[in-house]
């Protein structure tokens, strides 16, 4: 509608451990996507572990402190910028720390005291955001549609949201029937299927601890996605992506059913659609569905700038 563009809002970025390790493709594709969308991003200086999973389960207080330090640094970084946390576990623990510090005075006091001891400012006022919600609300479906530079000729996608981004806080999307990933993908011309397991458990770290249970949960997710006609799955969480991607051959062996489908990050598909450099989207890092990834996304440079 309006042609005058407001100055693009900039964001602070909290990578967390996953996006520097198993979730490297998430970081690469997100940076490429945001560059294409001209969204300025600055990595939070001196960030530390977010405090998720094992910390939160074993020593909640320490988890809150770790998380609070990151929030405090973000506050210090200034500019009233929102803190973008792409990893679902990081997002949840940062959000939970803010919430609990406010809801339970004893936790709030403890966090405030420890920040004071470390000579850090209070952590309030920083808004923790997830890229899905940020893309949906700040960039918007229409802008993405306008930025499409490649035509999708690959298969249908099952959008898998996982649990941590939508519950218990439902700011990223609706708790039980989230639809924003579907909306964004359809806007850039990528078809999605109706996937009723979209917020069911991927097993989390159970694949490492109680392996059988973790494998079974992933089997159900894969099987249902295929049954619904999906030829790939897309996620917004490094752990979901890891579980669904890396165990397909093991699941195939166990169940005598053949699974070999790509498991993408949302930012890979969007980044590809808006014309991102295929070498910078981390597509080479996927374990399963290699042939599909190559056929759909890497060998059709010719269709690139059709707009």
């Amino acid at each position: 509608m309006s042609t005058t563009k407001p100055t693009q809002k900039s964001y602070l970025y909290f990578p967390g451990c996953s996006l520097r390790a198993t979730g490297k493709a998430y970081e690469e594709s997100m940076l490429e996507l945001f560059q294409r969308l001209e969204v300025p991003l600055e990595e939070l200086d001196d960030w530390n572990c977010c405090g998720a999973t094992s910390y939160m389960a074993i020593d909640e207080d320490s988890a809150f402190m770790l998380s609070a330090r990151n929030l405090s640094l973000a506050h210090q970084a200034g500019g009233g910028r929102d803190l973008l946390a792409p990893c679902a576990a990081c997002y949840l623990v940062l959000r939970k720390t803010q919430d609990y510090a406010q809801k339970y005075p004893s936790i709030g006091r403890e966090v405030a005291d420890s920040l004071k001891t470390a000579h850090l400012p209070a952590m309030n006022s920083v808004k923790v955001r997830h890229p899905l919600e940020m893309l949906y609300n700040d960039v918007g479906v229409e802008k993405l549609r306008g930025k499409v530079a490649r035509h999708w000729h690959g298969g249908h996608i099952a959008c898998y949201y996982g649990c941590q981004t939508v519950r218990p806080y439902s700011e990223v999307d609706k708790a039980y029937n989230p639809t924003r990933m579907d909306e964004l993908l359809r806007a850039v011309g990528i078809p999605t299927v109706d996937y009723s397991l979209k917020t069911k458990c991927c097993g989390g770290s159970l694949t490492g601890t109680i392996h059988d249970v973790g494998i079974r949960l992933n089997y159900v997710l894969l099987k249902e996605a295929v049954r619904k006609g999906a030829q790939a799955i897309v996620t917004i969480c490094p752990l979901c992506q890891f579980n669904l991607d890396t165990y397909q051959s093991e699941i195939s062996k166990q169940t005598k059913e053949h699974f070999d489908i790509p498991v993408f990050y949302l930012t890979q598909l969007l980044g590809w659609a808006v014309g991102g450099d295929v070498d910078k989207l981390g597509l080479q890092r996927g374990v399963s569905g290699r042939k599909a990834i190559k056929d759909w996304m890497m060998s059709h440079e010719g269709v690139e700038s059709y707009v």
Partner: protein
Amino acid sequence: MSNSNGTVRIGVYICHCGSNIGAVVNCPAVAEYAAGLPHVAVSRDYKYMCSDPGQELIIQDIREHKLDRVVVASCSPLLHEHTFREALAHAGLNSFFLQMVNIREHDSWVHSDHAAATAKAQDLVRAAVRRVVLHKPLERRQVDIDASVLVVGGGIAGIHAALTLANAGKKVYLVEREPSIGGHMAKFDKTFPTMDCAACILTPKMTQVRSHKNITLWTLSEVSQVSGYVGNYEVKVKRWPRYILEDACIGCQECIEACVFKQGKTEDEFNEKLSKRKPIYIPFPQAVPQMVLIDPDNCIQFKSGRCKKTCVEACGERKAIRFDQQEAIETIKVGAIILATGFKTFDAKRIPDYGYGVYPNVYTSLEVERLVNASGPTAGEIVLRDGSTPKAVGIIHCVGSRDERTNRHCSRVCCMYSLKLAHLIKEHTGAEVFNFYIDMRTPGKGFEEFYQQLLNEGVHMVRGRVAEVADWALDPSEEGKLVLRVEDTLAGFARRIPVDMVVLSVGLEPQEDADEVRRLFNISCSPGGFFLERHPKLAPVSTFTDGIFLAGCCQGPKDIPDTVAQAGAAAAEALALIDAGHVEMEPNTAHVIEEECSGCKTCLPMCPYSAITFKEEEHHAWINEVLCKGCGTCVAACPSGSIVQNLFEDEEIYEEIKGVLNYA
């Protein structure tokens, strides 16, 4: 402020209320303290002041000690102010020379520190003693009662209340906003546990309403305004056009047949949107009044003005169809009002885990009532949306009941209607039926026996709250089915049960507009939103507004027998009120000191009861004490302080405040 010899003599009574007060407040110490206060002639504590001996104590003291003021420290005045005022009157004292102190709800029930609670009781008693000295004698006034009754809502509750009153010879106005009376009960097929046909027992009562000489029935109508007071309510009723002349329509329904729409295109509300109806229609075959109506949103004549009007042709000489009918307002005077506005069922979409609105074969219980009903959309066949008969059916109890996320209350009827539906589904289709319940609640007459009968019929009972209804299959046996995932808490493991049809036993909720209705009639709601009764045990059909009574599910979920019993009780209460012929009005009303009123009119718009008028010639405000409810709003608003409220005069309130602060 004193008796004949110039001194005031006060009696103070501290009630233990068994251990309710006595276990926390040191009652003898409070009585001893009160004995030392100025003007106190007698001070006592007693186990139950409200008992006969307790009241007798006051009466004797008034006579023997020539008391002229009484302070009772006990429970809320809401409970026993009337009791003690009567005791004063019995002893020949003006009953408004009483002041009550609430040391139960305001003290012993909310404090655990005994010493502090006792000190608080002493402070409150001191305040009352100083206040009561200034009390003036007041008289109640009598007002005549209009002998007619308004019943709002034409479900089984409203119908039963209206018939009871009309049979007793009272004039009744029955107002219903739907085009037919009958309410939810008219939609049901059978009624538990006797399996009486709902229509067979309801429709005779519906036609009685229509033909009763003492009942004026207004359908498609809604109460829009209520003014006045107990015994003399003035009510405005808005009547929407039916576009049919009621006196001319004979219910032949030839117009429906003749409508230019060959097939219905509009979702049929009565059939829970499971079928379509035409723009001219009758809600259901036994509708009362037995006449058609036109839905202007879907009628071509209303939308374009260019319909062939084949309905008018079919109606012929009777000329019952009137496209120009307008909304009308009727004004009536009644002595009492019975609210029987019913409930709405829980919106199953609010629990996305159960897939209502997502999977076509997930139904609500009310939809299944229509499916199983012979006059319903499938003529009594229980079939899925594709026309096939289900081989396995899962019924989920407590959908929107007993759930922290939605409603905390138990809806009371779902266990039994779920069993009833299980029986009917099994009988009609031979399907395997699974009931998923949290607890089976079958406390009514014949209910437990019915449950046993169902168990013998081979209905599967699974104790556990269903986690989700989903369409994902783990193995071929689940393909194309709806899978219920549930922890079977009796067997002790998680189960997956594939079925063809899921029935959600939706709970009962207050009507969408319950809060507006509450305000219209000036009554209160319970925390869940149902209308609040005056007392949960002892005044279950009364409200805090005199002359307004409750019947049926608007007060809380209940089954048909309980609803009918309550409707009868509400009718009896209304009868007792209007047969007395007059009511006594409380004298705690406000009045204007005419010499001091400046005529600024500030008070006029403040009065919620429209009791204040302005006398132009004399240039001052005037309060109709019959309309005044003693809320005190005008007293506080008057800039010149020239409005005074009986029992709440400034001096009395100041003295009470000084008393509680122990201020000289």
